[in-house]
């Protein structure tokens, strides 16, 4: 095992060397590779030998002390106690460093209305837990240091103290009650939206499949029409049922473009396996499930341009990524997201093409100028829609 573990150490650092060898010719000269591998194995054995020698030296030292009749050589209890104290100090600095350095590399401020609430909730939780984290760790390691045995003292017999135990049951319970209540209200406010008839959300359907996101905009009617997975063919990748006239104006888009400060309601479906619709900048995540449509509604509040200024990063872009393991290319399943002004959005959306192509018109026996549907060609289209679940997209509006 030792040897195996070493392999990795070895090649972690010689990789450049090994890589060069691999890159030059197709049949890799494994001799060289094995030699450098062996080198690292030997290096590790050397470290082991060194530790063994140090161990022996300590042993000899202790034996001489013993034979001289003095107390044992090294007071390991002291050593470990001091190490805990050192660990506490260095560890606390490490935590500070992490909070300030890595803590500054995180997502920018939430770019959505509900995201701000989530961030507030997060900050409150962070403060509470950090305080507890630091106090308990100081207690833990300081006790370890202060109360290390010196062979002279006897421990204090203290089996219980009901008042104290009650105290540290009730205080965490109260703190958690506050967090639960706030969390519960935040959660409800995100998922139980009361629809405002004056400010209806823009509906966008996103369909996931290995390994892409298909975006469907509702078109002029504002309704994303029905689809049926049984209609999926090479030219109708989403299985859009063009007998539903709400579908005739539905548009496809290569990226997700959202108007700022306008609620948007994503209808999420999946063609094959589970995926997760994750847009970290907006604090949005929901799984996409085959056979079930799930919804996430939120309001973006910061345009991409504004965010570029805020983050001081001219290359800044919102993104959509997949957060649920979905296969080999899970790590590269992305879509660009842009938040623009209402005006820009209107200009952009008008340029997007419709899903309905001439090929599809032929399949669905539609005239070239879009008109109410004719009878479908295929028998299976006529089959009753057993999958009502997927078809709830025609939202009452």
């Amino acid at each position, binding site marked *: 095992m030792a040897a195996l*573990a070493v392999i990795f150490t070895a090649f972690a650092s010689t990789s450049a060397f090994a890589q060069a060898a691999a890159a030059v010719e197709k049949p890799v000269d494994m001799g060289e590779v094995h030699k450098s591998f062996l080198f690292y194995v030997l290096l590790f054995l050397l470290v082991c030998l060194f530790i063994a020698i140090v161990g022996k030296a300590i042993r000899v030292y202790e034996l001489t002390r013993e034979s001289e009749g003095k107390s044992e050589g090294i007071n390991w209890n002291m050593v470990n106690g001091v190490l805990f104290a050192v660990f506490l100090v260095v560890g606390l600095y490490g935590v500070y460093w992490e909070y300030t350095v890595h803590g500054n590399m995180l997502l920018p401020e939430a770019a959505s209305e509900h995201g701000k609430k989530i961030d507030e909730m997060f900050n409150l939780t962070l403060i509470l837990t950090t305080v507890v984290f630091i106090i308990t760790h100081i207690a833990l390691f300081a006790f370890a240091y202060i109360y290390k045995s010196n062979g002279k003292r006897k421990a204090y017999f203290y*089996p219980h103290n009901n008042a104290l135990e009650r105290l540290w049951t009730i205080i965490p319970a109260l703190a958690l009650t506050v967090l639960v209540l706030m969390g519960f209200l935040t959660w409800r406010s995100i998922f139980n939206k009361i629809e405002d008839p004056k400010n209806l959300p823009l509906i966008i359907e996103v369909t996931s499949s290995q390994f892409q996101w298909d975006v469907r905009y509702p078109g002029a009617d504002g309704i994303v029409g029905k689809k049926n997975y049984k209609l999926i063919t090479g030219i109708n990748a989403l299985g859009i049922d063009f007998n539903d006239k709400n579908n005739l104006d539905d548009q496809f888009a290569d990226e997700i473009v959202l108007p700022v400060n306008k609620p948007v309601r994503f209808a999420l479906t999946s063609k094959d396996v589970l995926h997760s619709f994750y847009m970290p900048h907006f604090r949005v995540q929901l799984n996409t499930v085959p*056979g079930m449509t799930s919804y996430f509604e939120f309001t973006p509040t910061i345009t991409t341009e504004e965010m570029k200024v805020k983050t001081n990063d001219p290359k800044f872009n919102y*993104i959509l990524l997949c*957060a649920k393991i979905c296969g080999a290319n899970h790590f590269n399943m*992305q879509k660009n997201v842009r938040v623009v002004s209402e005006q820009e959005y209107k200009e952009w959306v008008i340029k997007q093409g419709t899903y309905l192509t001439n090929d599809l018109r032929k399949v669905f026996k539609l005239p070239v100028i879009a008109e109410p549907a004719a009878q479908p060609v295929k028998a299976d289209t006529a089959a009753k829609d057993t999958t009502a679940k997927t078809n709830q997209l025609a939202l009452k509006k």
Partner: protein
Amino acid sequence: MSTISLQDKHHDNHDDHGHDHHKETFITKYIFSQDHKMIAKQFLITGIIMAVIAMLLSILFRLQLAWPDKNFPILETFLGKWAEGGRIKPDFYLALVTIHGTIMVFFVLTAGLSGTFSNLLIPLQLGARDMASPFLNMLSYWFFFTACVIMMGSFFIQTGPASAGWTVYPPLSALPKAIDGSGLGMTMWLASMVLFVASSLMGGINYVSTVLNMRTKGMDLWKMPLTIWAFFLTAILGILSFPVLVAGVVLLIFDRSVGTSFYLSDIVLGTEILPNEGGSPILWQHLFWFLGHPEVYIVIMPALGISSEIISVNSRKPIFGYHAMVYSLIGITTLSFIVWGHHMFVTGMNPLLGGVFMITTLIIAVPSAVKTFNYLATLWRGNIRFTPAMLFAIGLVSFFISGGLTGIFLGNAALDINLHDTYFVVAHFHLVMGSAAIFGMLAGVYHWFPKMFGRLMNEKLGYLHFWITFICAYLVFFPLHFLGLDGVPRRYYAFTEFEFMNKWLTVNVFVTWAAIIAALAQVAFLFNFFHSIFKGKKSTQNPWEANTLEWTTPVERLHGNWPGEIPTVYRWPYDYSKPGAEHDFIPQTVPYSQTMSSNLPHDFEGNTEAEEIQKEWDAKNKPSTETAE
């Protein structure tokens, strides 16, 4: 090996139990053994081997994460087509994380931890000759062993091991066309898991019946050490939750092999429309997490029990709030059945359910907090001896705090929206159930090694092992929280495809180096462990000066545990540093009549006669005890 040389003594001392030891051969003693101590060692060594394998798998994928653009030709030598040209393939990367998770959660931290220490300690600490059913116990190990073999066997098939994540969510796990690992590899995963659950159940039933029926005279439930309480409650949890996983697994087998649609509906692969209708992938998640969440407590509770015992022994102090410790274990056990939904906040489950599960989840933090504070109070004004076991137990408390606190973020449904399936989750559970439980297991190994092998492990190597592992575990997992907070999802093969992840590449390199050093430090443990079995310093009967019953058995470790009568228990296991006592520990087998100088009124539990006697004794001797103090 000492066990062999001591055979003869064993034969003198068997009169009171009816095992057929006359014909004890190598096979009945070491392979198909029915002695709980041997079975414990079998579980331990198998667990250690599986842990090493899982650790190597983790180093493999850490290499990929740290250096996504580099080739490591040596990998091809070992992995062949899965690392062609010295680069791990994305499919194989997912297989690595899947099998790493499966091995660690089930084979190491469930079987390796409960299997080892429940088997070893339940009879020894309760005063029983063996388990309630030694044969079932043996079967339990061999089912586990077979499960391990099948799981590892999946590395030797064309399509590779299961690779849908250790939670094997369908449809990905149900459709071989979606990912290679969902072919034969997944079938083997499911078969292995069925055997594993059978093994767990046989073990669990044995533990519960032994604890309930086979305690020695005087050992009432409130005199049991906390280790036993933890193992007992863990076994109950396992018995109630594991069958649900089997139910889920069987349905998944049907979906995969018979064409049913329990988890599948409306699926199109490319343009191929599958006939399945009416199922729901969410059903699997409910069934899986109904086991899966209790499972994390199955992992951590034995570790907490072990550390309670070790911290008390090595602080030379009674564990603080024994009753509170037991009640919080019971609380955790009960609540763990109604929190599974917190794994599913963002699956599209009804948001109302999310709210309910959030409440139950955050409540479970209360008993956990109580346990932590009680550990701290036990250390306070102790007389702490830093044995390697004690170091690891303190490490466990630290990890339990760090990982537990991040659980408060994830248990909050609103915060989980942005943290779900990111590296924040990875960091959280690797601290709270990964590192903490492993540290509990290591603490147990160092502490009870003398009871298993009659020898002591080398302390200095133990210190080296602890400090490197402790520091590196933090170096590995602490920074990962920040990746999660930046929105980096887990199970990503490479961070190269997203602009915003580039800044974390250097962190990945750092983390990988820390992981490699931690892995190398385990060599110190492995050497120490295997070397000490044969060459370690001979142990005395009670090397840690502990109170519990296992230290009253002879060092020789007889089949049947005690040569003569099983000792009777008179007191709780935590009379350490009792004022007025001669030594700083009073074993459970010492009656109060022999410790008149240290008895407290509370000790007699309302027995007025005993109180009278004590009062009379105090009246006669009080002045002398007072001067002594």
